[in-house]
């Protein structure tokens, strides 16, 4: 069996943490509050943002989310956040825009950590049910549910493809070959995803779906 991503943080070590005993509504409220606080803080005031990040890291620690996991995910997120943040000064020829970039970076990290804490202490299906109960549009909740469900299916497919590639490259592949190969793999994954989406649509139609999202919790 090829290992895949952890299917739900909230069913792992976090399930034994104090945060797990919070009601999903309260956990959602706390998470939104942390994000809002980050938005309200002055973008360049480093101590206040650092304090908020420390609080969020402490919350993640209390939720028993392994530090390595937080660091890995944060590193991936930071790559994208940095790219986005730097685009602002870049658009001004690096003569300004650094404050906005700093704000994007701080607030992005805070939102990311807050979201990570939320999905660590609330199982995703309960989170979706809470969002529905709070009146979030059904179609939006359905999109989140689909994304969550098929993220793992596609990740598994990607893992299988990577294993198949490794099995036939015999450790002799150069950097250019690996890049070209990865690009081909991403293309193939996109095609497979399209095929998958068509089959899922067929499966939904086969059970009477008419375009209206209906749930038991409505």
């Amino acid at each position: 069996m090829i290992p895949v991503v952890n299917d739900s943080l909230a069913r792992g070590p976090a399930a034994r943490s104090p945060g797990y005993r919070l009601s999903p509504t309260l956990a959602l409220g706390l998470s939104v509050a942390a994000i809002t606080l980050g938005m309200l803080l002055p973008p360049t005031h480093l101590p206040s943002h650092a304090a908020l990040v420390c609080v969020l890291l402490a919350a993640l620690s209390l939720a028993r989310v392994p530090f390595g996991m937080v660091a890995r995910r944060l590193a991936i997120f930071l790559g994208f956040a940095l790219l986005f943040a730097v685009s602002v000064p870049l658009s001004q020829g690096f003569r300004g825009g650094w404050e906005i970039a700093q704000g994007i970076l701080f607030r992005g990290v805070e939102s990311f950590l807050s979201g990570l804490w939320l999905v660590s202490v609330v199982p995703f299906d309960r989170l979706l049910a809470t969002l529905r109960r709070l009146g979030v549009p059904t179609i939006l909740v359905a999109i989140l549910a689909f994304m969550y469900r098929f993220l793992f299916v596609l990740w598994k497919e990607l893992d299988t493809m990577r294993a198949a590639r490794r099995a036939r490259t015999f450790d002799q592949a150069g950097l250019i070959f690996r890049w070209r190969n990865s690009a081909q793999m991403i293309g193939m994954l996109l095609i497979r995803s399209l095929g998958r989406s068509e089959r899922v649509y067929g499966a939904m139609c086969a059970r009477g779906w008419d375009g209206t999202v209906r749930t038991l919790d409505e």
Partner: protein
Amino acid sequence: MSATAPDNPLPDNVLPKSVLPETVLEVSGLSFSYSTGRQALNNVRFTLARGEILGIVGPSGAGKSTLLLHLNGLLPQRPEPTRAATNGAAVHVAGLSVGAANLAEVRRRVGFLFQDPDDQLFCPTVREDVAFGPLNLGLPRAEVERRVIDSLAAVGLDGFEARSTLQLSLGERKRVCLAGVIACQPLVLALDEPFSNLDPRARRTLVDVLRRFEGSQIIATHDLDVVVELCHRVIVLDEGTIRADGAPATVLGDQALMDRHGLEVPLRLQLLRNGQP
């Protein structure tokens, strides 16, 4: 069209006498070509009686899945690239023609189980996924809840309601999919390769579940031993054409027929023919 075999070592599965020979499904002269021009089905015609279990066998690319997709109205209405020409309403479910005007009712009458359970399981929890079909039927919440519990019990997954669909084995995922289909209480189950990739225990469990289902079934499969064990009748499909239609032991015991269409006489029949129990 029926095949005959000189020696029939296994008594055929017969429908119980209590079952009325009422036709629940009629396919008459169905032909279909994909947009690539490949003829997938060619003048296919057969009927299915109430309570009958029909096996569809044939080599890969014979048209088995294409045929099943027509029973539920998923073809030819599917969008590109599989949109293609068919020759009119050639499928009837309990007297109702399969067409755009009747799709909702047709899909209530014919439950479709996809080969890959990941195509069919799209809700976060088992309960929500099994409830998807009944909710689309517009049933009251209490009735939906009852059907979820009953369907999961029918497939041997009592108490799985709150489980995440991500945390199930392949066999369990297939049975949850089946529960989702059964929850709509269809007249006919159309099953596309239900036994593929299952380990022996999961395969045996699924066979037992299907044996208990009281409606009619059409099972497209490469597992010929299960066909001999479970089905009342079998159709050999090759290049979109029905090559044989008859009792499983008779059709699948015909060595020449099996060789012609890239199949093998099931091990079960071979052993019995050689005098082994």
